[in-house]
């Protein structure tokens, strides 16, 4: 009887697949299905800690130059360095992170930071040079989040405008620790569906899960770790 490796816990499976993406997916392999001799290999168990720390990054990170007046607060090198600090569990199945110019969505209120597109593709959008001038008042919870990340937020209720100032390092950390981790949370959940373009959860639940992942992993990072 073939013993599938697909049901391994994700933490184990992620490390194994990142270490050897083309390994057979069962301990008997495809030869046995053809009536041939079974592969002589023992069933892999939980990878050692050493193996987990040397998991290679199997994700492409690309960067398109920002337009004049815009910037990528975290560049390709920052993203790669940050990814190396993360659990393989979050990166398993991730194909590409693209630092791109403005989003194609039109007429959306607010500023768009990033987009997760199944399967395994994350786009981090360029941002305007600080300070940011927003048309509309920022919700208090969002303002608090930005302030916690190091921004200076000034909301003018009378005119309905918001000004956000960012120190450069704070904006980079915000984009990595909150925005990128949030999108990785989407990926972590959606990856359970494999390549099928189907929603695995309601949008609301998807967002809540992504926010939890961002909080959990962002809070676990040391302040100077990125």
């Amino acid at each position: 009887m073939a013993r599938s490796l697909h049901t391994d816990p994700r933490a184990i499976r992620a490390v194994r697949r990142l270490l050897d993406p083309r390994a057979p997916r069962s301990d008997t392999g495809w030869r046995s299905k053809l009536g041939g001799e079974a592969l002589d290999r023992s069933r892999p168990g939980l990878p050692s800690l050493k193996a987990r720390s040397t998991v290679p990054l199997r994700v492409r990170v690309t960067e398109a130059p920002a337009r004049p007046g815009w910037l990528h607060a975290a560049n390709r090198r920052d993203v790669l360095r940050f990814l190396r600090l993360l659990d393989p569990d979050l990166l398993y199945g991730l194909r590409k992170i693209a630092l791109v110019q403005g989003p194609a969505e039109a007429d959306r209120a607010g500023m768009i930071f990033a987009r997760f597109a199944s399967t395994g593709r994350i786009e981090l959008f360029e941002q305007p040079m600080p300070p940011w001038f927003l048309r509309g008042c920022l919700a208090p919870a969002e303002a608090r989040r930005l302030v916690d990340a190091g921004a200076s937020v000034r909301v003018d209720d009378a005119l309905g405008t918001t000004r956000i100032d960012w120190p450069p390092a704070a904006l980079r950390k915000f984009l990595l620790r909150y925005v990128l981790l949030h999108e990785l949370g989407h990926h972590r959940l959606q990856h359970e569906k494999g390549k099928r373009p189907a929603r695995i959860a309601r949008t609301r639940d998807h967002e809540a899960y992504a926010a939890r992942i961002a909080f959990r992993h962002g809070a676990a990072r040391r302040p100077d770790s990125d």
Partner: protein
Amino acid sequence: MNRLSAILIGDSIENPDNARVMLAAARMFGVDCAFANAVPATGLSSDTTGDPDRLRSDSLPLITLDAVATGYGQVIACDNLPGAGELCGFRAEARFALLVGNERRGLTHSSRRIATVAVQIPMQSRRINCLNVAAASAVALNYLTQMRVGPMARVADPASRRPEVLLAGATDHIEMGSAIRSAAAFGWSRLLIDDRHRVWFGVDRIVRSEGRAAARRARNDIRLIPITKQEIIEVPEVLVVTTGAAGPPLHRVDLARGARQLIVIPDENTSHVDSVAFERNGRRLRAARLDLPQPFPYHYRLIASIVLAEIARQVGTRVPREGRRRERPEYLLQLPLALEAAGESVSLDDLGAY
């Protein structure tokens, strides 16, 4: 191009004040103006006030549609008709007639029949689908005779390119109302109002009703925010557009810098532009000029509508999505802003007085 070879024709215009402002719009661009109907005399301001400088209803020039059809090689219908082309980027012949229609019903069947081509001013609003007829005439004449520009921009995110607009110092409530209507039609969801002459906020019931009617406030859900000179508007760039000689021509200036840009349209009738106040408010004060060939009776709605139309052209409209979008899960992370309610901000004093 000989501008006098063009003519603006009003078809079934009802409101004599609109007819008067249309004459001013035609004078502004050095073209003739005539009407295909007799405009009702009642209600024309000069008929009742006795002002000798203002137009009398019996002095409106008339023309028949047959004379238009035979006398002008190109007859351009300006209305949002099916199949009408975009006004921006349209090149008219040297001798043309521009037809604009009734305030409520648009062009009549007779005038549509003689038209050789139809153009429309691109509207962005779903609720306000047309301009005041005199404002529309000015916008159309501007693009047909004066401002040679390309078509409306097609961009991915027009909302992020739309600048803040401040209507400053209007002296007439109807002119202000028509300018507000134009802003809503061109897609603005909010406007800053410097009401230093008290024509919009805290006015009596009659003035208020007339102004709101001109702005089509029943359907127009634009948010109006009153500001005073003392208030600080935090934007890096302030651009003041006037008909004076200062600055580069309007269409050569980048008017699509989004919320980082404040464009001020002052009423030049009585008020001068207080550059000191604007310099204090913005980091950089720039000026742009609206080139108009002829001296003309100033009407704020005309200037404001022309400027707003050019800003809207540069801001652009979204690229139409082709084909059926593939249903794939996508999740956007964005900074949510509190939605602004439609309406007007009022002070407690005004509310109490009302």
